[in-house]
């Protein structure tokens, strides 16, 4: 083919694709960074917030309403615009812009581990003064929710919701086989056996994303050894070779060996496993309470037949069923390079206001962190039930990966994944201990 013909071919193809891309794409015009949502714009200062929610989901819609409220305020000279980057890319993108000294003015992050890293790198502002100047604001928060955001006595972020991890189950399936919700580990195993024999996957668990498997192992460790082993890890003088951790590894292997997990669970990701639960292929799932919102938003026909329960206790374990795996799952921080910290603070404060905290509960199914009057008529049924269960709580412990932050937190998750793939728990935790010692 001559050069001319080739050039023509390429030009034609380019033109065609340009035209089609222009007509068809979901191109949001000024797409410099993902989807952009802006408010009214006649003010001088323009700030940017990063959000990891999926555009259009229940939480994002609440966020947009709060944004409207904020941007409509006459006493502030700043507008705020949110950019949504759902999923894995969020971390990479956020850290990249921070490293480039081009951080967003406000962004969401996990508490504890990673927030501490941002604080030590001087990337986020302390809210100590802000809280001191407005004690009423601080009082609004439930006791202890600010703990994981406090470093050296100062608070560095504002939690917006809290999540509790529980055992969700399909009441229809349980009734069909005459099963009772398991309250002990032994009962869990028994129930799983029955379900498996009828071809139902007992627990929807997909370990492709390591943190999912870690939910169960963290519960197991806490039920067996209580809070202390991990508390000591967090303080720096603990050991991963504590028997409760090693035992939790064996628990995972035991459950896997008896068929409690889906076939090929090592290759199953989050959406695959929730789909399994939502369409009745699996009877149980251990998940954080954000799942309530997702369930409501899905088209599952079992939506009204889902129940929630405490994660079973282990007879002879030091822990009990009233210790909850919880943490503030959505925390807003102000970047140290924020253009208008005062306004940013005002935005953060909006989230703790009673009417918005109530909406967190009523609309998104997540749990509020500040005192509010939740209209129990409006909240999702599952929220109500879980709320009652949580009222008994005696203790809270946090996700290990959130508590430790990267890279240790990720190493824990990977260790659990490796144990499920066959590695001996002693070995896996031994290696983890080596890593832990090097980092301390």
């Amino acid at each position, binding site marked *: 083919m001559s050069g001319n013909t080739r050039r023509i071919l390429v030009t034609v193809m380019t033109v065609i694709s340009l035209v*089609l891309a222009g007509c068809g*794409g979901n191109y949001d015009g000024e797409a410099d960074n993902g989807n952009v949502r802006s408010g009214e714009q006649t003010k001088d200062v323009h700030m940017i917030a990063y959000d990891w929610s999926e555009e259009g989901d229940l939480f994002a819609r609440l966020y947009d309403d709060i944004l409207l409220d904020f941007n409509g305020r006459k006493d502030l000279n700043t507008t705020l615009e949110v950019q949504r*980057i759902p999923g894995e890319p969020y971390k990479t993108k956020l850290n*990249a*812009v921070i490293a*480039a000294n081009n951080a967003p003015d406000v962004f969401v992050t996990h508490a504890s581990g990673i927030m501490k890293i941002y604080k030590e790198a001087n990337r986020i502002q302390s809210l100590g003064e802000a809280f001191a100047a407005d004690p009423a604001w601080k009082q609004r928060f439930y006791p202890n929710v600010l703990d994981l955001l406090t470093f050296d006595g100062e608070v560095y972020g504002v939690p917006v919701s809290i999540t509790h991890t529980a055992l969700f189950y399909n009441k229809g399936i349980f009734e069909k086989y005459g099963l009772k919700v398991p309250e002990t580990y032994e009962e869990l195993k028994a129930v799983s056996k029955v379900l498996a024999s009828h071809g139902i996957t007992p627990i929807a668990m997909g370990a492709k994303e390591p943190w999912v498997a870690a939910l169960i192992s963290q519960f197991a460790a806490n039920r067996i050894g209580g809070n202390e082993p991990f508390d000591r890890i967090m303080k720096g003088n603990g050991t991963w070779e504590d028997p409760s951790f090693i035992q939790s590894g064996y628990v995972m292997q035991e459950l896997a060996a008896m068929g409690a997990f889906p076939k090929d669970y090592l290759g199953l990701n989050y959406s695959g496993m929730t*789909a399994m639960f939502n369409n009745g292929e699996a009877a149980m799932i251990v998940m954080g309470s954000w799942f309530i919102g997702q369930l409501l938003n899905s088209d599952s026909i079992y939506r009204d037949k889902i129940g929630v329960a405490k994660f079973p206790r282990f007879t002879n374990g030091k822990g009990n069923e009233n210790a909850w795996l919880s943490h503030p799952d959505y925390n807003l921080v102000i970047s140290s390079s924020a253009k208008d910290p005062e306004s940013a603070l005002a935005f953060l404060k909006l989230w703790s206001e009673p009417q918005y905290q109530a909406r967190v509960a009523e609309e998104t199914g997540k749990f509020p962190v500040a005192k509010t009057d939740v209209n129990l008529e409006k909240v999702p049924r599952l929220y109500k039930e879980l709320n009652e269960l949580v009222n008994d709580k005696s203790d809270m412990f946090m996700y290990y990966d959130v508590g430790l932050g990267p890279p240790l937190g990720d190493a824990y998750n990977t260790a659990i994944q490796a144990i499920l793939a066959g590695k001996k728990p002693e070995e896996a935790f031994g290696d983890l201990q080596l890593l832990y010692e090097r980092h301390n």
Partner: protein
Amino acid sequence: MNMSYRANHIIRKTALYSVLCIGVVIYLYPLIWLVLNSLKSTSEIYLNPWGLPNNWKWENYVQAWTVGKTGIYMFNSFFITAVTIAFVVLLSSMAAFAIRIMKWKLSSTVLVYFLIGMMIPVHATLIPLFVNFTKVGLVNSHLGLILIYISGGLSATILILYGFLSVIQREIIEAAVIDGSSMLKVYWGIVLPMIKPALMTVATFSFLGVWNELLVALVFMSDANKMTLPVGLTNFTSTYSTDYSTLFAATFMATLPTIIIYIFFNNRIISGMAAGALKG
């Protein structure tokens, strides 16, 4: 020839052709399977994975193009590839000309300098490039990606063009200079046209290399609207984890341009590749 030899011959021929045809099936069927299934609805794929579609759902392609952003990915890939090819061909031909035709002491040294690049795997430069581009704001931009692709394609291209320039005789250049042409005009007006086939070969290889590139594009493009096709395809699996039909449609559309280029240029590609490897 006796009968048994003939029979032997026929058996052997049949065996050979069977092997070849089985090979063709192994090679073409995955593609055909992909296309057939891209025209079914996802549920039909589960029920009838082998056969022809019952309803030919052309809308899967529309869906992949618009909602699935394949159109955007295609445009990005075209744009980035076209710009990269243009500059790689231009810059490397200039450099090869300088090294091969012009006379200066360090010419061989510089050639070797460029050749070092052929031994460097992109992974070794990836992190520093990412960190530095982040600092100057070139991450997540088409410009940044193009610059990296150009710089990565220079070594091999300069080497190939250097080889082709070796056959240009001095006399031709002398004649042009005597006629009053400057060296640059010689480069542009005489030498370049003479090595057009080589430029085409090089352009084709560049096209394949850039169009299909995954790792660098993956690291540098986090914005769905800026992604190239390979990255976009991998992006698909997270949001469309169970919507296979759209994914198949997108995959087929992604491979179509390379197949078209291949149909037109396969001779050039294959001979260029063989020549390159045989030369050592």
